[in-house]
């Protein structure tokens, strides 16, 4: 579905992506993991067209994404969350989710209604709250709700489990998997919660220092010595 080929990007002095190539299969959960500063968020920023790579190609269902403006991506069915929740403080929780739904109105994809989404992520009680005072875990859920409400094909999640207890991580995983089935989603997941990654992904790509160092099934990757030394630690 999403194909990343030979992508490179440097910031002044920092080579954040080096010739990155991987593929995200439709309908699955692909995890993108790697140590801090590996380039995962940068990769997301390239896919969501906030950044333009120096070289390489990006294609979604055969459409060349490099030529697409960031604001058109939701129409193509791409939604994302941000590592540091990027909510709109002048809108309440429901308003934030409605921003997502505003996109979906124009798409022919199946989508959850705003109320369904709020319900699903247990946000109904907080619907009219200001987003600024929300606890971290709740912010993460609002982000996810906003993304889901846009009725995406491809969902990019940047550390959705940050700040959640084990129990809450489990709930989030179950929710994600069930929505994925319902809407026929494809998920690209960046997450440091190894247990969550391993238990829900069908395919894992590991990056380090801007490079892909491993790419395969979760169990294979988990035992890859390079991954252990660079990421998991002994």
């Amino acid at each position, binding site marked *: 579905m999403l194909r990343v080929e030979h992508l490179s990007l440097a910031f002044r002095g920092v080579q954040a992506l080096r010739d990155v190539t991987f593929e995200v299969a439709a309908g699955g959960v692909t995890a993108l993991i790697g140590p801090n500063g590996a380039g995962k*968020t940068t990769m997301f*920023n390239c896919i969501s067209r*906030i950044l333009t790579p120096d070289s390489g190609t990006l294609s979604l269902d055969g459409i060349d994404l490099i030529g697409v403006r960031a604001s058109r991506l939701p129409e193509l069915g791409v939604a994302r969350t*941000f*590592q*540091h929740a*990027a909510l709109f403080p002048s809108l309440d929780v429901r308003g934030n989710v409605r921003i997502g739904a505003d996109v979906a109105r124009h798409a022919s994809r199946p989508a959850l209604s705003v109320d369904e989404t709020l319900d699903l992520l247990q946000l109904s009680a907080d619907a009219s709250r200001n987003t600024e005072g929300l606890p971290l875990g709740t912010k993460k859920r609002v982000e996810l709700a906003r993304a889901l409400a846009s009725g995406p094909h491809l969902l990019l999640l940047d550390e959705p489990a940050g700040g959640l207890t084990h129990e809450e991580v489990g709930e989030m995983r179950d929710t994600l998997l069930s929505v994925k089935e319902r809407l026929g989603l494809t998920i690209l997941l960046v997450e440091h919660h190894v247990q969550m990654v391993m238990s829900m992904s069908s395919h894992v790509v590991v990056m380090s220092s801007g490079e892909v160092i491993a790419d395969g099934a979760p169990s294979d990757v988990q035992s890859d010595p390079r991954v252990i030394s660079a990421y998991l630690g002994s």
Partner: protein
Amino acid sequence: MLALQLLVDGVGKGAIYAALALAIVVAHRSTGLVNFAQGEFATLSAMLTVALTGLGLDVWLALAVAAAASFAGGALIQVVIVRPTMRRDLVPVVIMIGLYVCANAIGQLTFGQNPRPLEGLFPAGGLMLGGIRIQWSLIGVILLQAVVITALTLFFVRTKIGLGFRAVATAPEASRVAGIPVERMHMIGWGIAAALGAVAGVSLTNLGVYVEPHMMTTVLVYSLAAVTIGGFDSALGAIVGGTIMGIVESLVTGLVPGVSGDAGILVSLAIITLILLSRPQGLFGRERVTRV
């Protein structure tokens, strides 16, 4: 020849704009606010200086006393008026408008309407350089400003307190976490800016401006434009921005036929828009960090 003289005139104009611009930069660098009332504070400081010289004080001494008093005044205003409203969006802007109006009124009430000159800080007259006339006072003011920028730059970049000022201006909450006394820093920042306002006001009187309640009205607009061109965080930028505006304005109105004195502000509008379109943070400003 004419062009050269106009250039010198432009530098003089620029020095006027730069004087107040420096105070604006300091306030911004240490509190993150653009103080619209800065010009009026400077006017009050200049009036105080006039009053002190009237008591027989030497003008430099009067300036020092006025700067010290201004420091206290600025700090006091920060504590009593600005601090309680700091964190509420547009409110500080209107607070500063209120301060502007009050300061202006105080000037009229205490000093009266009549313009008064202030004894020069520098020798009168000037030198002729191949037919170009340069006043000693202009040279003096420029030197004074050079000293101020150097001191400010060293202060903000080299010293621990200077670093603290930059921290509280850009990230007050993180500063609190790091144990920096944000409120006190803001107070001192306003004080320093007000003291520099005194220097600005007195500099102006050395560049042909008289002390009167409205001496800063237009200067403020140009100085704000200068700061914007130079970048809100750069003392050097304030000087460069002011000088660019002064020179371009002087050359355009002096050399282009049919362009009248009023065009100055239009020229400034053009310069500021063009420069900011290519460098939105100003020539010497640093772009704010944005990434996700």
